């Protein structure tokens, strides 16, 4: 019964996401596209934060590298969408393998600082290598690659067609992350988060598992970055800056780091708040800060996490009563 309801809700949500563009205008569709892409970015971050216990402050490096790979491919090689996105993913994953190799050697604050340091090194790389990356202006003026599905070719210019493409890609990688987390590998990650020492006693190489998690998170962030570069029609250094790394952190904390869909709800809340508040005032950061602080103090499990524990308590109470 419970499982059926779960599946029902999931199917309804996905159906809603697919039907949304049928009754919404261009702006809401673009808006939702951005939310979907950032949801994937935040979920990839949360594989490290929520499930492995590593707070990365340089995750934008992989998001940005995916974006730059995509933009460079679109500008110079004109290959179609899926191979481009695949290459973006590989570029981001390969850099995550190199950077992760060093970062996973430290934990807590030191891990956060190392990822920050490496992330900003990538930032200076794209900022200074003008001949390749366009420096601080970034790469602009390329066309969105054609989506070639063998049987049919699609142009992804319009907000609607790009929305569907981004949605399908993000759903596939969400499923991928879900499978990773619910595999035996994911179980080991979670037990490492709870007590790394105990896990190492039973002969598991903690560093190796952390490294693999780091690479997977980097791969998926690269896909999100590749999509975002297409969505924005540009790759710019701001995609790699530490302030971009802070976004998935904020979204995840808002939504809840211990719940799979927490980052998704966080991204949604983040964008809705921003959109609503900026209609009245430019100072939306004050509001974001004023919302973030009580959440950190009173709802450490995030919005979704707190809702779930309330729900559980309510169900228990109801069970006793009945």
């Amino acid at each position: 019964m419970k499982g059926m309801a779960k599946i029902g809700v999931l199917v309804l949500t996905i159906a809603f996401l697919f039907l949304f563009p049928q009754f919404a205008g261009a702006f809401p569709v673009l808006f939702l596209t951005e939310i979907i892409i950032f949801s994937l970015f935040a979920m990839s971050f949360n594989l490290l934060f929520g499930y492995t216990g590593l707070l990365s402050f340089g995750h934008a490096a992989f998001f940005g590298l995916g974006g730059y790979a995509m933009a460079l491919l679109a500008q110079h090689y004109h290959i179609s969408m899926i191979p481009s996105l695949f290459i973006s993913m590989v570029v981001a994953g390969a850099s995550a393998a190199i950077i992760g190799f060093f970062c996973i050697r430290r934990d807590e604050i030191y891990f956060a600082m190392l990822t920050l340091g490496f992330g900003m090194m990538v930032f200076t790389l794209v900022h200074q290598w003008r001949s390749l990356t366009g420096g601080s202006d970034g790469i602009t003026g390329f066309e969105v690659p054609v989506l070639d599905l063998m049987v049919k070719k699609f142009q992804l210019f319009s907000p609607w067609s790009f929305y569907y493409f981004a949605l399908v890609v993000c759903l596939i990688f969400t499923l991928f992350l879900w499978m990773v987390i619910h595999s035996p590998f994911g179980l080991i990650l979670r037990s490492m988060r709870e007590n790394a020492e105990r896990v190492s006693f039973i002969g598991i190489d903690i560093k190796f598992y952390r490294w693999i998690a780091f690479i997977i998170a980097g791969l998926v962030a690269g896909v999100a970055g590749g999509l975002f570069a297409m969505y924005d029609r540009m790759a710019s250094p701001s995609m790699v800056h530490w302030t971009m790394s802070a976004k998935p952190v904020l979204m995840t904390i808002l939504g809840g780091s211990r719940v799979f869909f927490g980052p998704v709800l966080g991204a949604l809340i983040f964008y809705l708040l921003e959109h609503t508040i900026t209609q009245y005032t430019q100072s939306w950061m004050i509001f974001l800060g004023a919302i973030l602080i009580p959440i950190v103090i009173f709802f450490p499990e995030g919005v979704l996490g707190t809702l779930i524990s309330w729900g559980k308590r309510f169900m228990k109470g109801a069970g006793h009563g009945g």
Partner: protein
Amino acid sequence: MRRVLSGLIAAVFVAAMVIGGGEAFASKGTIKIGSVYIFSGFAATYGQFAKQGLELAVDEINKSGGVLGKKLEVYFEDSHAKPPIALRAIRKLVYEKGVDFLIGLDSSGVAKGVVPYLKELKVPLLITHAATPDVTGSQCNKYTFRVSVNINQNVMAAARIAAKTKAVKWTTIGPDYAFGHQSWEYFQKYLSKLNPRAKFMKTVAFPKIATEDYSPYITAIMAAKPDGVFISLWSGDLVNFIKQANKMGFFNQGYTVLMSLGAATEVLYALRDQMPTGVWVGTRYWFLANNSPVNKHFVEAYKARYGVYPSYNAQNAYAAVYALKAAIEKAGTTDRMAVIKALEGLKVEVPAGDIYIRPGDHQAVLNVTWGSTAEDPKYPIRILKPMVIFKGEEVTPPVWETGCKLQ
């Protein structure tokens, strides 16, 4: 888990209600203009001056019956001087507010990010400040126009002034993005033609936008002992640079100093008597350069309403509204394609003088003003004495040289 999903669904529906509410469409009675400038950060005053100039023009036009009997309505958005944010702002203006035309853009970087996307949006944009030659050159398209002086024109004039000075060894200090690098590139190109003896030094400085401490760069340039320094910093960056350079004695070294955007009144008001005298400064409009009734009216009306003399950003925004008005009236309709046709080859008088929008690359041809800074008790800011005015045709490269292929 069930709660997770039901929460999610509820949230998505709320989202749909908030943002799916309704796409605005151009209402019959008004012409909607979307406007994007920098309203925060190192160049916030530029957005403020542009907004004032634009609102002055719109109020004047609306008071005298509008355009084709329709009132003008303007929506402003902040680009934060960042290309992705500017793109987002333009999407919002076009898709959410349903604007008919776009006016604005400070910063070459922003322009290079936004201009290619206009082909998809199919909305005409009149650029009033961003100066990179690319947007009316290699990146040019049907929807992009520029009513203001670009890098080629400004720097060509700079090179002519530089060629007349005794300076041989030249270096530069410019912002580290498209504008700074391209300004230096064109300065070298034009000056080496006019003065084959000119040498361009290896020591150059490109501090990043919104640098707080210029002292290492100032030290590096002073140590290189140049004869001439071409400075393309602008806005708050130029103000900060000049204040710090004053303290380090930079202007007492006998260099010939050229500042391509030093005569922006935003900068002159911020510095007042801290602006050194005897420095060559360029601008995209100078309020004392033209005695025409149109300019006199503009300067007086602006001063009366806002208490300061108009800057180039104010004039350019003001001029863009009048250019758009002229084009709509010439076309006899607000249809975007017809207005684009009317803008091509349009001649219109604005405070800066007569401007002509070339059909070949959509760049306006207009006079370019440079001058040497001087004190004048009649003005609270430095003014230009002597002033040099270059004819637009003399400093604008031919269309074939721009790399633009519109036809």
